[in-house]
């Protein structure tokens, strides 16, 4: 996560006496090399940007347009037949604003990996429903919370929030009391005391 412009953690306020070693500001990953990664690299070449491992958990970073072919390939040729989760994370200061994360599991290999991609705001990634049926609700939730629209999704609408909800709550620029303030303003005509 070298290119993520995040606020550096503040130094501990009154840590006089012993200076705590500063944690590294980037994820301390190690390269992930295995038969699977060489297979994937052979098949997808430049589309796969990095294969990394962090605390024993393996993941690969791919270009957005390659994600669905990779999921498909992993399902059919490498037996990763269970899509555990689809989720996202918001990094507003980055040009490619969102991380889109697919967690995969293979029953026969007993292995869990993640496929990650970075997409800019407004980019419409392809849906994974064509590969894994379970992506339907998971992608709807990502849309609901982050406003990432999936192209080709059969039912792209909000799932947890009401349809007339404004904004996407899990974006970092969505304040935690914003909704309350607006509701109080509109319905009571006063400023929220929160």
């Amino acid at each position, binding site marked *: *996560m070298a290119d*993520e412009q*995040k*606020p*550096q*953690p*503040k130094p*501990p306020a009154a840590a006089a006496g012993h200076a705590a070693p500063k*944690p*590294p*500001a*980037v*994820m*301390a990953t190690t390269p992930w090399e295995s038969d699977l990664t060489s297979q994937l690299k052979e098949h997808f070449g430049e589309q796969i940007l990095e294969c990394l491992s*962090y*605390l024993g*958990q393996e993941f690969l970073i791919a270009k957005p347009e390659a994600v669905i072919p990779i999921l498909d390939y992993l399902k059919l040729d490498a037996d990763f*037949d*269970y*899509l*555990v*989760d689809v*989720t996202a*994370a*918001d990094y507003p200061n980055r040009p490619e604003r969102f991380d889109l*994360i697919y*967690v995969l599991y293979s*029953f026969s290999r*007993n292995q*869990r990996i*993640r496929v990650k991609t970075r997409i800019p705001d407004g980019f419409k990634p392809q849906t994974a429903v064509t590969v*894994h*049926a*379970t992506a*339907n*609700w*998971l992608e709807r939730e990502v849309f609901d*919370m982050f406003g990432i629209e999936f192209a080709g999704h059969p039912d792209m609408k*909000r*799932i*947890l*929030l*009401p349809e007339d909800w404004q904004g996407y*709550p*899990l974006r970092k620029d*969505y304040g*935690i009391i914003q909704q309350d303030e607006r509701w109080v303003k509109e319905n009571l005509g006063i400023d929220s005391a929160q």
Partner: protein
Amino acid sequence: MPEATFLDATELVLNMGPQHPSTHGVLRVILKLDGEKVNGTECVIGYLHRGVEKIGENRTYQMFAPYVDRMDYVAAVSNGLGYCLAVEKLLNVEAAPRAQVTRVILTELNRIASHLLWLGTHALDIGALTPVFYTFREREEILNIFEKYCGARLTTHSFRIGGLQYELYDGFEDDVKAFCKAALPKMDEYEELLTANRIWVSRLTGVGVLNAEDCKAYGVTGPMLRAAGVKWDIRKALPYSGYEKYDFEIPTRQDGDTFDRYIVRMQEMRQSVRIIRQAVEDIPSGPIMAKVPKVIKPPVGEVYVSIEAPKGELGYFIVSDGSTQPYRVRVRPPSFVNLQALDRMAKGALIADVVAIIGTIDIVLGEVDR
């Protein structure tokens, strides 16, 4: 506009819920009916949405721990365990040995409690009024143990990052052993009431079939997957908290119908008793907390950690930016994902079967909506 169906009748759209005794909370299912037959369903969820993931980003790691208990509130201990394991993974520490064994005991007790609640209410939905009184009686024993341990019965917040919230109370082992001793004959009692009961069997057999292939496609895990013949349990496949030390089996069935799920859950409770019995004999002494800093600031990174909750795979994906608050917490809830398969199971069934199918998924809406 009503659509014409093959019988040249109009399709009837009926709302089941959000306030309906058999939907186990505020779940609204829109049924598209052709007479009694269900042509399709659509779930409307989110009535209990509290934005748990957003809350997590605005709390410190320790402050967020009690919130996770409020998701699957009938298996709060499992939620807490998953969260603590995920943060411990980020910190790259392991819980103290004494804590690990205690965690196993409490989590398995909670699994039994969750399955008992499921059994009682599921039977109630089907029309068997008696089991719920028995199952709640036994569940009460488990909740009493929780209450003695930490003062809370449902949302226990029993674990801390790195270990346990409290030292075990005097007599904990005896209480647990007494429960285990009493539990097995009680489970025979439930089975006597239900397993060979003709009404029960005919209401459940062949209803809501979901085969192994569909389970994998829909990401369905837990007892539902095992009832379809897939011998997969995270406690065995990717052991955590020392589960590899215990001798237990993964019950499976072949047909993947509602009856098979019932049998699998019944057997799982017996296996849980088996695990607890082994664990309680061998609680190591020592501190209940591992060496974890007072201010938790995991290094920059992200992890996905999951456990076998009573309902299926419960996963936490946590991103740390090196500060005291998680940058992103994602909960992968088993109920939410399993509920998605409702449409697949209910298509072609009767309205009365929909009640059985919702019951057999074992959803908790607090977890579906988060």
